[in-house]
């Protein structure tokens, strides 16, 4: 029970910044893939559709990462 409670607490305490970094990482992946395949930039709507999230979330996520390089560092490597 303590285990579950701890899990729930940790889980519900996920900060927005962390989740946004996650989304931002996916957004950049979709962008890079699209660019490689089409030789042009995808629009926000195209990215949103690919990820199944609202346009605003794409934009919001990109705002959460000031330094795109740092995205690829600790959490995902």
């Amino acid at each position: 029970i303590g285990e579950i409670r701890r899990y729930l607490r940790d889980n519900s305490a996920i900060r927005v910044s962390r989740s946004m970094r996650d989304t931002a990482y996916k957004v950049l992946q979709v962008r890079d893939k699209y660019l490689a395949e089409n030789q042009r930039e995808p629009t926000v709507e195209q990215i949103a559709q690919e990820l199944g999230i609202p346009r605003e979330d794409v934009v919001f996520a990109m705002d959460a990462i000031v330094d795109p390089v740092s995205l690829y560092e600790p959490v995902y490597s």
Partner: protein
Amino acid sequence: MKTKANNEVTLAFPSRSSNEGFARAAVSCFAAQMDPTLNELEDIKTAVSEAVTNAIVHAYPDSIGQVVVKVRICPDQVLEVTVRDHGRGIPDVEKARQPMFTTGGEERSGMGFTIMESFMDRLVVRSTPGRGTTVVMRKRLAPRLKSGT
């Protein structure tokens, strides 16, 4: 009684349905200053979405009017969101707040106010028929633990 806010923003936009998503996103961008959890932010977004949708669909049913959203960060991790319109108003607020009550026909659930009430801690609705409606919602976020473990 007005609590002093530590920070606040006012958004004003026409009652177009495309602005519902904007309002929801803008409120959550602003609330992000409070370092909410994802769950808290989802609750806030859901409540804001209901209130703004009401202003768009009920306040100005056949026209475009102004919707004003004010977001205030108050002491003790309290977020206050006010959604105001100058639309047709609500004749009987108590009745309108009942679960399942709707004047909107088939496609409306009548659960908007109930959702605002359950996702926020406090809901005040003031309305004058022919003059408009003001919805004030408050939510106290869980105190932030100092990070470390």
